[in-house]
């Protein structure tokens, strides 16, 4: 799955959890969930759970702690997908 497609999937998942729709429209790999999108830690948990469901992967605590921006999140998703495929 390419990054562009994945950013779009992420955008769809994040939409209900952010008030900052403007920042969401201009989402890039550098977008930070807490700083740029003003997502709180409780909503971040729901985003992670939605990601698990969407991509059929399991996110552990260590990975979750790293998933603070789009780039890191995509990297974790790719890593888990690769592990599933292998």
């Amino acid at each position: 799955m390419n990054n562009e497609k994945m950013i779009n999937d992420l955008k769809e998942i994040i939409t209900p959890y952010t008030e900052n729709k403007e920042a969401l429209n201009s989402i890039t790999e550098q977008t930070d969930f807490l700083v740029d999108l003003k997502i709180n830690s409780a909503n971040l948990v729901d985003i992670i759970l939605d990601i698990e469901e969407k991509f059929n992967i399991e996110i552990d605590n260590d990975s979750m702690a790293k998933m603070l921006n789009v780039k890191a999140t995509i990297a974790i998703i790719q890593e888990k997908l690769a592990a599933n495929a292998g």
Partner: protein
Amino acid sequence: MVKSHQEILALLPYTKPFLFVDEIIEIDENGVKGSFTFHEDLDFYKGHFKDFPVTPGVILTETMAQIGLACLGIFLLGDEVENLTIAMTSTNIEFLKPVYPAEKVVVISEKKYFRFNKLKCEVRMENEAGEIVCKGEIAGMLIVKNNG
């Protein structure tokens, strides 16, 4: 180590006049059932409403959160409850019937998930007639601070 009902109550971070748990009836990893009686002397009845005391919805919500989320959270965390901070993060509650002074209610909470310190539960409150007075979803973060 599994905690007794009394131990869980003692660990709740609330006290009068804002403690809304009398008793834990049953608790396990999937949910909790507990009760509270709204004593007619409770202060908010003086103002909600003028000359017509009814338990405020926010207090019913708080009662559901204290039993359904806080008690269950303390149970689920097991031994890691030192310096526990509980923050309610979302509620979605429907209020179906009024609760008057001196009524005893039972709160039944079922865990939807407990992941990454967030506990989300499906919670309902029943009156003594067994009627559902309010129901919905409550979520909160359970943060344990390390004291180093």
